[in-house]
């Protein structure tokens, strides 16, 4: 047990260079065209180490009765790979971390896997099926972790304190210049981050009261009849409308058509509120419905009015679910691009200082920046590879993901903590 823990910890620390090497096989910095055989050799090299370890692991679990044998075999493979690497037959920074990383991730999902051993039907199919199921769980975790690691790695050359906090870009003629020796300097995305947060905040100011009001009305005040199912049907319909259509309608209503506001924060905020409304209504309504009837009855028995009951007893009890719903809606609105681009964005990059927030002015947003940056930065730029342009976009994406993850983690923690608090109260 102690040996495996040691191996896992060291592998987790040492894994990063190996992962970088594997990723580089897929995305070399600077554009170089390689022959297909070289790419295959690259990938094969990386997987030469993973596959035997995995095979031993699978064989040990599927066919052998003694499960620890499978572990021992995979560790042995790792040791062999390490030795080969030490003799420079294989790149050891690649070998050790990948073996251990794969074993680590596989341990999580295959920890209590018990293979069947019965005589009356083919046991291999059964074990293969159970293995395959766990593999899908393993793939889910790997997808998310892989995304985060990849974005972090691609973004890391461009993340500096200046990038994160300044909002000044240097113009060189009619375009941006990166720090490529052409007298340019990399700018910062603080302006875009601020713009994104302001826009989503504006959207939530509109969407949260509206959604909360609708949810409270539907679950507390309305008679459970046609009206509530009608409203629910419309909310579900709104949730299913594609975002481009809401963007087009936002164009029609706010930008060009009815209100003629032009591209503005008002139009953007209201269109985003259309998108966030279903989150607020659905999740909050479920949370309110989940409050036991005894809470309400006790409050009425003490002489409270309907609104007092709702405000002090029911909403307090439903708080964990409500906060989770609102925060998840916040996170989803943060990542919205096309609605924002159509109604509030496509703004020229902030040149100096924080963005001016005028109700009828366009506002720069992080998501629109990520979308447009490769094109913007490429206008007139010389000697830049495609990857340099995407590097800046990846850095902005990294910032966006960090904010999004922070919102998600706060939502999950709030749900757990507050539900414990409410139950214990």
């Amino acid at each position, binding site marked *: 047990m102690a040996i495996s823990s040691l191996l896992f910890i060291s592998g987790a620390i040492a894994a990063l260079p190996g992962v970088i090497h594997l990723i580089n096989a897929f995305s070399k910095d600077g554009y170089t065209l390689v022959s297909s055989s070289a790419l295959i050799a690259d990938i094969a090299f990386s997987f030469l180490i993973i596959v035997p370890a995995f095979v031993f692991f699978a064989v040990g679990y599927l066919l052998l009765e003694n499960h620890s044998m499978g572990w021992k075999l995979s560790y042995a493979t790792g040791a062999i790979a390490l030795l080969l690497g030490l003799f420079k037959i294989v790149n050891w920074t690649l070998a050790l971390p990948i073996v251990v990383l794969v074993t680590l991730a596989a341990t999580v999902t295959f920890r209590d896997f018990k293979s069947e051993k019965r005589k009356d039907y083919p046991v291999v199919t059964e074990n293969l099926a159970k293995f395959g199921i766990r593999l899908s769980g393993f793939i889910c975790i790997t997808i*998310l972790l892989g995304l985060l690691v990849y974005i972090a790695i691609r973004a890391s050359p461009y993340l500096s304190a200046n990038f994160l906090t300044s909002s000044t870009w240097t113009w060189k003629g009619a375009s941006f210049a990166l720090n490529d020796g052409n007298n340019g300097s990399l700018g910062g995305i603080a302006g875009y981050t601020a713009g994104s947060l302001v826009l989503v905040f504006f959207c939530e100011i509109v969407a949260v009261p509206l959604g909360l009001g609708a949810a409270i009305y*539907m679950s507390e005040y309305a008679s459970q009849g046609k009206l509530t199912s009608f*409203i629910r049907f419309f909310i579900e319909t709104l949730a299913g409308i*594609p975002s481009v259509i809401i963007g087009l309608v936002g164009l029609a209503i706010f930008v060009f058509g009815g209100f003629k506001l032009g591209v503005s924060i008002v139009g953007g905020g209201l269109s985003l509120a259309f998108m966030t409304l279903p989150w607020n209504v659905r999740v909050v309504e479920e949370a309110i419905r989940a409050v036991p009837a005894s809470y309400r009855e006790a409050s009425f028995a003490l002489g409270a*009015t309907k609104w007092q009951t709702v405000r002090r007893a029911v909403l307090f009890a439903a708080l964990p679910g409500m906060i989770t719903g609102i925060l998840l809606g916040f996170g989803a609105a943060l990542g919205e691009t096309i609605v924002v681009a159509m109604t509030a964005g496509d703004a020229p990059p902030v040149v100096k200082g924080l963005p001016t927030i005028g109700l009828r002015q366009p506002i720069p947003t992080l998501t629109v920046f990520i979308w447009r940056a490769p094109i913007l930065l490429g206008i007139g730029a010389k000697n830049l590879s495609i990857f340099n342009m995407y590097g800046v976009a*990846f850095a902005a994406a990294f910032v966006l993901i960090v904010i999004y993850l922070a919102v998600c983690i706060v939502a999950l923690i709030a749900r757990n903590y507050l539900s414990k608090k409410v139950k214990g109260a």
Partner: protein
Amino acid sequence: MFNAKMLKENLIKAALFLCAISSIGIVFFIVAYMLWLGYPEVSTWIEYGFKGFTAFIYNTMYVGIGGTLLGAAIGIPCAIYLAEFADMRIRNMIKPTLEVLNGFPSVVLGMVGYAIVCFTIERYTGGTATGSFYCILAAWIVLGIMSLPLIASVSEDSIRAVPQDLREASLGLGATKWQTALRVLIPSAMSGILTALLLALGNAIGETMAVLAVIGVETPPPITLNPLVSSNVITAMIANGYEEVSWGSVSFDYLFAAGFILFVMTMLLNIATRTVVSGQNRNAGSGGTNL
């Protein structure tokens, strides 16, 4: 008798009622605008090129169905795992993962998909000096990742909802856990799984930014089964086109007509989902055991 307290109560009730009604109003507004602006131009769209019309719908459905199937290939086994086989610790690791993946910013997913899939294909087959390889396969992969959480969680809920006595009866007859899952639970939860697939398909058809980054700008898109060609879908077309055309021009009305077609497709899928759900409710009533 005039009662200040009752007045406050009634005011609050009226305010909440207005909030609830506003949601109906918003959707009604959106639908009405969509119909009003888009419908007259559908004939223009058909005239513009009958081939373009069908090509876009075909590609939208092809990309959407492929992405949903890919997400289901991973999502349904994951749902079985979460519902039947996982212990609390792993559940508490996988469920938050799915929730985080659910609302993941799609522009970032599209960028990562482009950087990994498209550039790999380009290096493998050799691309031009400036561009890179857009393909439907990349869109499938990206849409698969996006639809994975939805399919997994809705399918897991419907597998959990299968009555316990069905499981116990199957185990009592000597079946193993996996045999129970495959032959008893999945058929019972089939309408729930189908609902999940249709919901995911609706999301996949309406997905813009992730598909936009990987699908290309072919107009009209090709009608082919080959997933390694660059293509176009309705959402990507609208997203690419809206800034280049001016309000009120013929091309802009073209975009609204395309949006209208997309809206109709989404509505049809919505109705199909509702039909499946009501079928599930009907069957669940009569499908229990009589022990």
